[in-house]
């Protein structure tokens, strides 16, 4: 008997799976496609010859960890990201997230407090007014997205290293871990050396105006030596820690160091 090529007569299994993937919410789809199970499941369902991907995924994850180490090794804490004149600023600066602007966190600045946790002497929470009183600097740098596009913007705020000093953070710890108010709970770890980089900033203003909702009100962490997804917006807490706690995109497979 000829090999049956249809699960349901008249329905192409490959197209069926494609359509099924399309109906998944974006987040689930990414997990499904990213997961090692996807190709395996595809093989089972379609019977078509897709290379067993679990071993490839393990190898790729190992190489990505190796790439983290290589990037940490060549990271020069004194190398500054290029700065630009105000005339070079990209207008309009793009809004970018895994959700629409309408779904972006709408935070009331009066209620908001920055929580500080982990290996720090002073764990007091900070109100926006208290943070606004800290010395601020402005820098015009290029934001580079993991997708490849880039845009030049002007960010104003307090160097993170000054704040870490102020709260008595243990700067020998490995990471500063940020949690955000984005839906699905955005978070991202920042290696301590990048956190102490002179251009790494707790950003309160964009183009000399209070940070708008689109760009992360009330506080964004601007790291010009990292790809965009390592620049968390709508930050609600920071934790100084030696534990690698993962991150929203990092857990899905983006390289964790992702430094520039």
């Amino acid at each position, binding site marked *: 008997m000829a090999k049956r090529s249809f699960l349901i007569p008249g329905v192409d299994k490959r197209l069926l799976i494609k359509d099924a993937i399309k109906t998944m919410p974006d987040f689930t789809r990414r997990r499904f496609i990213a997961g090692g199970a996807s190709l395996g499941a595809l093989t089972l369902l379609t019977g078509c010859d897709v290379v067993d991907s679990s071993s490839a995924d393990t190898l790729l994850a190992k190489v990505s960890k190796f790439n983290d180490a290589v990037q940490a090794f060549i990271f020069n804490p004194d190398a500054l990201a*290029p700065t630009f004149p105000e005339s070079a600023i990209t207008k309009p600066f793009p809004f970018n997230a895994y959700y629409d602007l309408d779904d972006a966190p709408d935070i009331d600045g009066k209620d908001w407090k920055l929580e500080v946790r982990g290996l720090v002497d002073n764990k007091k929470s900070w109100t926006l007014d208290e943070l606004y009183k800290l010395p601020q600097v402005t820098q015009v740098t290029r934001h580079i997205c993991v997708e490849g596009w880039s845009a030049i913007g002007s960010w104003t705020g307090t160097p993170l290293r000054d704040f870490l000093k102020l709260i008595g953070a243990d700067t020998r710890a490995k990471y500063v871990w940020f949690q955000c108010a984005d839906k699905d709970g955005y978070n991202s770890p920042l290696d301590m050396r990048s956190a102490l980089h002179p251009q790494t900033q707790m950003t309160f203003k964009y183009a000399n105006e209070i940070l708008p909702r689109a760009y992360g009100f009330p506080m964004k962490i601007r790291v010009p030596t990292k790809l965009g997804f390592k620049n968390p917006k709508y930050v609600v807490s920071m934790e100084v820690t030696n534990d690698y706690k993962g991150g929203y995109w990092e857990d899905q*497979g983006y390289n964790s160091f992702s430094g520039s």
Partner: protein
Amino acid sequence: MASLTVSDEQVRATPTKVIQPAWVRVMHWINALAMILMILSGWQIYNASPLFGFSFPREYTLGGWLGGGLLWHFAAMWLLMINGLAYLVTGFATGRFRKKLLPITPSGVLHDVRAALTFKLGHDDLTVYNYVQRLLYAGIIAVGVLIVLSGLGMWKPVQLYYLVMLFGDYPTARYVHFFCMAAICVFLVIHVLLALLVPKSLRAMIIGR
């Protein structure tokens, strides 16, 4: 005695000349694999934010989504770079580049292009590259160097800022990277077509002679 002399000559004459030494063959096929992985994963990355008004068909991309494409790209880059570097060093050190690819003269290239287009370009001696081959092989090596430099610059635009400066700025490096890929794809099509038209050249790249 006489028979001995004859067999001596036979011994010298029998082993056909090695056209492609083992190191060239090994590095060629590693490069072929690395290039294909880099191109297919690169198309995946391109699709995340297309430079032009088109995307590459999903079926011809590697990794399933942007994150997967990036993992493949930044893994295969080591294969491409280490193999490529070893190839350049060996090519210069053994004098193979000089012997095989030089000289490249405009008149020689013109003559051989004309001969190729009228199907009069011979391939009797595979150990000697004609001028079209010399130009294409030297050119593709240069493109290979350029695509790696622009890629490294985009990967580390702060730490390796001098690479980005070489191309002007980050967005320009992205375009350079894209057009080098396009050049490699065009080369690949011509290269494979010609290898199939002259199968003994393909055989030489597999078994050496």
